[in-house]
């Protein structure tokens, strides 16, 4: 996925919005390369079970590095419909390709109001520059 076409949470998750065959909104969530560069040395990724209900701005998993642990936040209210289980045993793929094979979870949106809080790429980039 092209990072410039994605939406971003303040907590550094990227979000891609699509629709499934039935017309429901499905978001794919990952971690931005900015976040991954700050974390470095990943040792552990904890993803939720498929079927779990998640809520906007609440943690659905965690990523642990040598230095620190970070929560992964859901951008929307919804239900986990898929997780990238392969990534858990191949963590090196996460920083290598954070917008592709490093995706984390797909969430079926039940309440899309959380999407309104997300930033476009230029706004997110500005936030990162301020944090750096």
């Amino acid at each position, binding site marked *: 996925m092209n990072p410039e076409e994605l939406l971003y949470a303040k907590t550094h998750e990227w979000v891609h919005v699509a629709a499934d065959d039935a017309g429901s909104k499905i978001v794919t969530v990952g971690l931005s390369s900015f976040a991954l560069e*700050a974390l470095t*040395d990943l*040792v*552990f990724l904890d993803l939720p079970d498929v079927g779990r209900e998640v809520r906007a701005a609440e943690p659905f998993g965690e990523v*642990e590095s*040598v*230095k620190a642990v970070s929560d992964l936040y859901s951008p929307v209210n919804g239900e986990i419909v898929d997780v990238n289980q392969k990534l858990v045993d191949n963590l090196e793929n996460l920083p290598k390709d954070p917008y592709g094979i490093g995706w984390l979870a797909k969430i079926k949106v039940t309440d899309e109001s959380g999407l309104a809080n997300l930033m476009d790429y230029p706004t997110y980039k500005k936030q990162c520059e301020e944090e750096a």
Partner: protein
Amino acid sequence: MNGVPSHTPLYDWHVAHGAHMVAYAGWNMPTHYTSITEEHNAIRNAVGITDISHMGRLRFEGPGASVFLAETLTRRVADLALGQIRYSLVTNDQGGILDDVLVGRYHNAYGQPYYVLVVNAGNRAKIVRWIDQHLPPERANRHGEEIIWDDVSCLWSMFAIQGPRSVELLQPLVDVDLNVMRYYRGAQVRILHPAAQRQGGIISRTGYTGEDGFELVLGVDIARAVWETLYDLGQPFGIVPTGIGCRDTLRLEAGMPLYGHELTEQINPYQADLAFACHLSGYDFPGRDALREIKKQSLKAMRVGLELDGRRVAREGAAILLDGNKVGEVTSGTFSPTLQKPIAMGYLRTDLAEPGTNLMVDIRGRQQSAVVVPLPFYRRPTKGGKK
């Protein structure tokens, strides 16, 4: 410290080489340049060079210096041989740990003795105050027992050169034979570098990594030139600039305590398993009487090492549990790059501190099984190749 972190003479070099900088104890220091794990492994397997200029360096001289230091530190000082270094503590009147330090005795170019006290960056101001309080001018100026001392932290820089290739790397830059320098020994040396002219420095076989290595103290004006030369000379040995991120993972594997984590003013040396650093029968230092009492009592909790199952890391503050009851607390933890498993240090009820004891650790609301293990977690291979 006035809120704006200080820069070491190498700040620009660090930034130019991609360092991730972080404010640490009043200084802007590199956490890492590439990755903590890569830098950690470079020190275990080759050589790494770390800017540790943030550490505090205090210099003492004069006929009264050795007795004053003996009356300030928990360890014997008066019998230090030339070039000898000891790990010591500074304790308060209650026996709580104010800092852990290295004290070394050297001779200057004129053959006169002086002492260097290396203190933690975060404790430097506190220790300087402590010395001021315990060294009134009438004592410092007493005829025949004068004590001259100075905080030279901003005049001298300090590098850690650590790893199995460190002797080869450093040897061309100093005029002493590093092969015969023993652990916890050091010397004032001439630095064989064009920028140094006739300036001296101090080299010691000490470190905070559990690996063979040295620490080099030198003038701030030549620090960058010497650093760059070391970096160039180190290329054939696989040298890597290393940040304070891997300094933490290395010292944890080596079972070394860190002030602010394993050591605080609420912790006494016996709990911290640092009895070796307390000499109670010599000079009277603050806390000596309290430590004599503490030594007689049984300890409620003591410092232990833990290995955890899984890959989640137990970090500072995580509760150690037995049958759901809190029996201790983690003070530092990381994922060990060498052992490839989570390790931690913490304080644990003494009756449970025996290696092999199975416990649980509460990591952010979820329990993970752990076992008490002897410290250190990692011991470097000896010269014969045996562990």
